């Protein structure tokens, strides 16, 4: 399976996700934001970081990068797109995913491990989580507070487009286990066709027992089809 990681000025999880992809045998290429076309690829990853320094609005300037028109084309053709953290913010800014990401409720950057409940197994990104439905992943963001109007939220819930919600270790989804104040404890969402996933937690940071867990590995296993 082929993958392409887009590198924006200020991306800083590009290397991490590339290493994760290689570990799971993706043929990966790094793609510079100024390129006009994507190489032949099955999966496009928009990595975490601070593209353009988060200036103006997180992900906003990156969403207007030259490469993004081809990323949008790729997604319209049904190609897979994964946006992690800042990548999620870019997806929101391009309009590929609905809603917005506000500043965290406590107005502080927050880096910690959180519990997540997997609520949709019927897509290319999370299917392998059937073996483990309550997982731990790190978050590290300042603007991860997902917000959307009631119609959008209802649509996401009704169509089961929310694969990750913040919860406690037993899988209870309650306000007090929500680190950033997001609507409905949302940690990640899919588009209606389920070929685009945006998520705040970082699966690429937990792919190794030495890093205190491998719950992130399962996402890459799903994608490669293990």
């Amino acid at each position, binding site marked *: 399976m082929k993958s392409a990681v887009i590198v924006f*000025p*200020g991306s*800083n*999880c590009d*290397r*991490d996700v590339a*290493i*994760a992809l290689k570990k799971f045998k993706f043929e990966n290429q790094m793609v510079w934001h100024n390129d006009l076309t994507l190489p032949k690829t099955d999966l496009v990853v928009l990595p*975490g*970081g*601070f593209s*353009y*320094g*988060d*200036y103006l609005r997180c992900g906003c300037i990156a969403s207007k990068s030259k490469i993004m028109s081809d990323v949008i084309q790729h997604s319209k053709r049904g190609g897979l797109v994964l946006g992690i953290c800042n990548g999620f913010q870019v997806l929101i800014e391009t309009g590929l995913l609905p809603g917005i990401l506000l500043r965290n409720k*406590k107005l*502080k*950057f*927050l*880096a*910690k491990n959180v519990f997540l409940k997997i609520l949709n197994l019927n897509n290319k990104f999370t299917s392998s989580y059937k073996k483990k439905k309550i997982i731990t992943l*790190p978050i*590290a963001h*300042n603007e991860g507070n997902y917000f959307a109007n009631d119609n959008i939220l209802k649509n996401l819930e009704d169509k089961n487009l929310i694969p990750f919600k913040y919860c406690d270790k037993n899988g209870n989804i309650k306000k007090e286990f929500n680190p950033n104040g997001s609507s409905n404890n949302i940690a990640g969402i899919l588009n209606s066709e389920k070929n685009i996933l945006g998520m705040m937690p*970082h699966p*690429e*940071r937990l*792919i*190794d027992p*030495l*890093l205190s867990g491998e719950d992130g590995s399962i996402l890459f296993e799903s994608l490669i089809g293990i």
Partner: protein
Amino acid sequence: MKMTPELINKHGIKPEEYNTIKKLLKREPNLLELGIFSAMWNEHCSYKSSKKYLKTLPTKNKKVIQGPGENAGIIDIGDNDALVFKIESHNHPSFIEPFQGAATGVGGILRDVFTMGARPIATLNSIHFGSHNNPKTKNLLNGVVSGIGSYGNCMGVPNVGGEVKFNDCYNENILVNAMAVGLVKKNKIFFSKAQGLNQPVIYVGSKTGRDGIHGASMASAEFDENSEEKKPTVQVGDPFTEKLLLEACLELMEDDSIISIQDMGAAGLTSSSVEMAAKGNLGIEINLDQVPCREDKMEPYEMMLSESQERMLLILKSGKEEKANKIFDKWNLDFSIIGKTTNTKKLILNFKNEEVANIPLTALSSDVPIYDRKWVKTASTKKVKKMENTKYLRLSEALKKILVSPNNSEKSWVWEQYDHTVMGDTIQKPGGDAAVVRVHQQKKGVAMTIDSSAHYCFADPTTGGKQVVCESWRNLISVGANPIAITNCLNFGNPEKEKIMGQFVESIDGISQACQYLDFPVVSGNVSFYNETHNKGIMPTPTIGGVGLIEDLNNMMTKSFKEINNYIYVVGKTSGHVYQSEFYRVVMNIKNGPPPDVNLFNEKNNGLAIKELILKKLLTSVHDISSGGIMVALAEMCISGKIGANIQMPKSNINMHEYLFGEDQSRYLIEVNKKNKKEVSDFLEKNSIFYELLGKTQNDSLKIEKEFEIKLSELTQLNTFWFKNYFKEN
């Protein structure tokens, strides 16, 4: 412009120093030249009060590749890998403008590391604030923590450890010490020494603005009621540009285009150009018309003294300009050829077709006045009478008081604002004895710790200096690392005062003795004097950043208790020294008395034994005993492991409070599985190491037989209470 005594004084130059300048130039300087002298001759850049003593520190061992004198120190960690690291203070600016001051402190230290060709792999920091009751503290703490976070998070370098302390003495002078560690291939290290004639001098990075002018001079003077007015001397950071600069520099460093490179830190363009040329024994000529400026009509004086951030000066091999320009263009950074190396041994500046400065480089480097300042020995503090009523003081109450005190509280409020897992190699996160970061895609790991013990140093600078080096060493041992070298940040008051200078001289002596004995040399560092306001200085606060290597991460150790029914031992002799302890300070409100003695022989012997036991896989957890003594160390092991402990006091003629809360040095708590009990005790006995059995691990609670039992949930709640309450969070 006429040189008046006021003007000279405003530049922080003493009348006798001005006379020396005139002699060196054989004429009066012009204003620009005076500014340049002021930038190079101030304490911060010249180390004129400290140099004599810094020279006495041990700086070499088999692993040291580069000691002090470069942008950062470098040690060999095998397989053609080397670590580049340094600590630096940003105290003065952070007090005036906490967010930007702290942020640019991180930016500066990261540049020091990647200037040498290394990719930064971790940052740490030691921050000291005034009393939590001081009305300024909350804002300063908030500002500093968000500033550190904003810069490091954006750079994508994990912030893996540090310390946060509070004391009245920092009310008007906070300390912000930032450390960075980078990884480089041994054959790809870059240095700052210029070489070759007529080689192009290149300016890259951000444009020069009017920020930070005279920042280094500010850091070389005391504060007074007008310190607020110094706000314009604080630089404003742009971590995004620095991230681009990092990537661009590392890309250019992949081949051999660069002859030498130096970041523009304190005293900006002045110090970088002077240092590069002086080290190479060359001259340098700069055309200031070519300096990229952020604002219109900037004068040479402003360009030379600006401390705008995210800038570098390079000397390229001639002919490589176009290739280099392309890389910086790709990363959208300014690239300008601003001058060349010459054989004049002078700094010559031209502006609008006129020579505006002409200074022999020696006048700015080797001829900088060095002071042999007068100092007095620190008077030893008297032991007050020991408290006899402690038997009426419940142990559990004392423990609780310490656990909820700001200095001993768990600090996740701080480090959760720092991205500590980016780069995917953070194996031991903040909160342990030392942080551990894996060497990318290898089985070895780098252990790092940052420590200070101002109370000990204040009571006895020599012992305190020794102790803080030992604590750093012990923290590295506790995670299973082989300690290699340190970087130090020496924070003191006004060195023109004999008492302060005495604290400095004696602390250095203590640091030096311990470094020598433990083969733990100083490879880089920074001195911050003049941490004084209204004539009142801080306690002497040498901060030590220690670095070690874990050859195989499978042998890494942590402080968390791992399983129930294991034995708990204290290794090292407990004599119950409670003066200068957290127990005396927090619970008994006693501040006098000497710090605990440091016996370097025991320190080394005990430490090497622990290291060996870890390597033999005979221990399941290890924690060094430091502030709060055995009692607090036990509580911390319970809290982080979510496992309790049942302690039977060993038979001892030491008062129980003193036994449990004493801060005797060179001690560790270890957890041992039953099956290894004999082998561990045999090993310790064979090596003549004192140890005592304390008890066993158990479920759910920390219990001292016949005294008290506290649930783990309560311990955790107590330990995390203070920060949440201070910032009124749920």
